[in-house]
């Protein structure tokens, strides 16, 4: 069995944590695409029913607040991985 020195093991762990942090950041892309799609549909909805503008804005605002949190989860994990190792 191959045995590595502690320095090599440490650097392998560090590299792995950086790769994991980078991978975790990809999770932030999804909400952006989803929010954009929702905004596009909201503009169509406002054009179709201008009197419902207020309700559409509030629904979109609440949706964006909730959907944006998954991106922050990934950021927290990524920064935790970078700074804790």
């Amino acid at each position, binding site marked *: 069995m191959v045995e590595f020195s502690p320095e090599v093991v440490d650097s392998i762990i560090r590299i792995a944590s950086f790769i994991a942090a980078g991978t975790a950041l990809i999770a*932030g892309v999804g909400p952006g695409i989803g929010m*954009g799609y929702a905004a596009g549909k909201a503009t169509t909805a406002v054009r179709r029913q201008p009197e419902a503008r207020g309700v559409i804005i509030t*629904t979109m605002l609440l949706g964006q607040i909730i959907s*944006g949190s998954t991106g922050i989860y990934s950021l927290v994990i990524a920064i*935790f991985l970078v700074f804790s190792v």
Partner: protein
Amino acid sequence: MKNMDNPIKLQKEILKKTYLIALLPIVSALITGAMDVLLGFVFGLVISTLLLRLKYNNIRRALKMDEEKAEKFIRNRYFIEYAMYLIVLFTAARNQDLNFLAAAVGLFMMKFTVILWTILDLFKDSIQQKLESYK
């Protein structure tokens, strides 16, 4: 949820409830004397409040555009917001006076409040429906 047709009133209500819930960790941090936790939490809370306002302005601007333009606009703005979150969390992680996890919880506080509020509303509705069915 009240004020669903008035976005400004809804924002004020969200902020009021968020600050009310945020009093609990702030007071407990003050009592225990954990100043880094307090500062980190307040830092995250202030940034999330400002980003809520930014989100509202972006949505208002997007609704005046075409479908494709609005889609691109909101997507790009989200990535700018994401970069801001990254800077905030990076600052909290690097700075010794700010607690990283407290800053993250401060950023999440508004989302937690909205989710909690929705769950409470659901409970209220289901209880009211049951009461009406008994009558």
